[in-house]
C-alpha cells in the first residue's frame, strides 16, 4: 500500500544520556514540527528500533540524532550499528557533541553521519535536518511506486531489486 509521505510528521529518535539535553533537543524538534521519541542510551535506541528483534523494523523512524559522549555505547558505536544493519542503514544519523575535536568530527562523518552539531544545539542546527529527511522520503516514494508495478501473486517471488522509475 502506498503511503503519501507528506501526510504524517517525520519521526525523530533522539538519544542523550543527560536529562537537560534530552529535554532541550526534544523541545527543539517539537518546535520544528517533528514527532519525537527521546531515549537515554544507545542500547534503548536499538531496542526501540527493534534491532534486537531479528532486524525487523518495529517503528518508522526517519532520523536519529544522538549525543557522542554516552556511557556504555557511544554515539559513534550507535552510528556504526545503524549503518551495519540492513534494515536501518538508510536512516540518516546526526551526532551532537559538546567537544570541538576535529578528529572526532571527521571520524563520525566518515562513519556515515550526515551532520555533526556542536552543543548547545540551536534551532538553526535543527533546520539543517530537513534536507536529509526530504531526500530519504523521495527515495521511499520512488521505491513504493516501483513495488506497485510488480504484479506477482506468488509469495515466493524473487527478492525485489531497485527498478528504474520514470
Amino acid at each position, binding site marked *: 500500500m502506498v503511503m503519501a509521505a507528506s501526510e504524517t510528521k517525520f519521526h525523530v529518535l533522539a538519544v542523550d544520556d*543527560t536529562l*537537560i*539535553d534530552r*529535554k532541550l533537543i526534544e*523541545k527543539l524538534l517539537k*518546535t520544528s514540527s517533528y514527532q519525537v521519541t527521546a531515549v537515554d542510551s544507545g542500547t534503548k535506541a536499538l531496542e526501540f528500533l527493534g534491532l534486537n528483534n531479528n532486524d525487523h523494523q518495529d517503528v518508522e523512524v526517519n532520523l536519529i540524532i544522538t549525543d557522542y559522549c554516552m556511557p556504555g555505547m557511544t554515539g559513534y558505536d550507535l552510528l556504526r550499528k545503524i549503518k551495519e544493519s540492513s534494515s536501518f542503514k538508510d536512516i540518516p544519523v546526526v551526532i551532537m557533541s559538546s567537544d570541538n575535536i576535529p578528529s572526532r568530527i571527521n571520524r563520525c562523518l566518515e562513519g556515515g553521519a550526515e551532520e555533526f552539531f556542536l*552543543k*548547545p544545539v*540551536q*534551532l538553526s542546527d535543527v533546520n539543517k535536518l530537513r534536507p536529509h529527511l526530504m531526500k530519504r522520503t523521495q527515495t521511499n516514494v520512488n521505491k513504493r511506486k516501483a513495488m506497485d508495478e510488480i504484479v506477482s501473486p506468488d509469495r515466493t517471488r524473487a527478492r525485489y531489486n531497485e527498478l528504474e522509475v520514470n
Partner: protein
Amino acid sequence: MWHGIDMCSLVYSFAFVPCACEHQGIVDDQFTQLRKLEDENSPHFVMEVASLFFEDCEKLINNMAIALEQKQGVDFKQIDECIHQLKGSSSSIGAMRVKNACIAFRSFSDGQNREGCLRCLQQLSHEYSLLKNKLQTLFRLEKQIVAAGGSIPRVH
C-alpha cells in the same frame, strides 16, 4: 484588573532581569534561545530546565566537595567527570559564568591540585548561587505578573 504602576514595574523588572544578567555575563545567548522556545504549548519550559539544572548542579557540587575531603586520596577522575557534566549542562542552559568556572576548575583537576580545586569549587558555588538567585527572581516576577492578570511578554 491591572494594578496600574505595580504591573508596569513588574513587567519592567521582568524585562530588565535577563538583560542585566546577560550584561553581567551571568547568562549568554543560549539562555535567550531557551526563552525564545517558550510558547503556549510549554509556558514553563525555561523554569523546568532551570529546575533540572539547579538539582544537577547542587548534586555535582556536593559530590565534588565530598571527593575533595577524602583523606585517603582525592579521586580526580571523579572530579573531572563531575566538571565535564556540569560544563555540559551549564552550557546547555546558557549559564556562562558557571561554565567558565568549570573550565578554570578543569585545569586544577588535571594538575591534581587539591588546594586549587577547593578554591575553584568555592568560586563555582558562588557563581551558581548568583545565577540561582537571579533566575528565581525572574520566575517569581513571572508568577506575580500572571497572578495579577497580566501575560508574559514573549521573546522573539
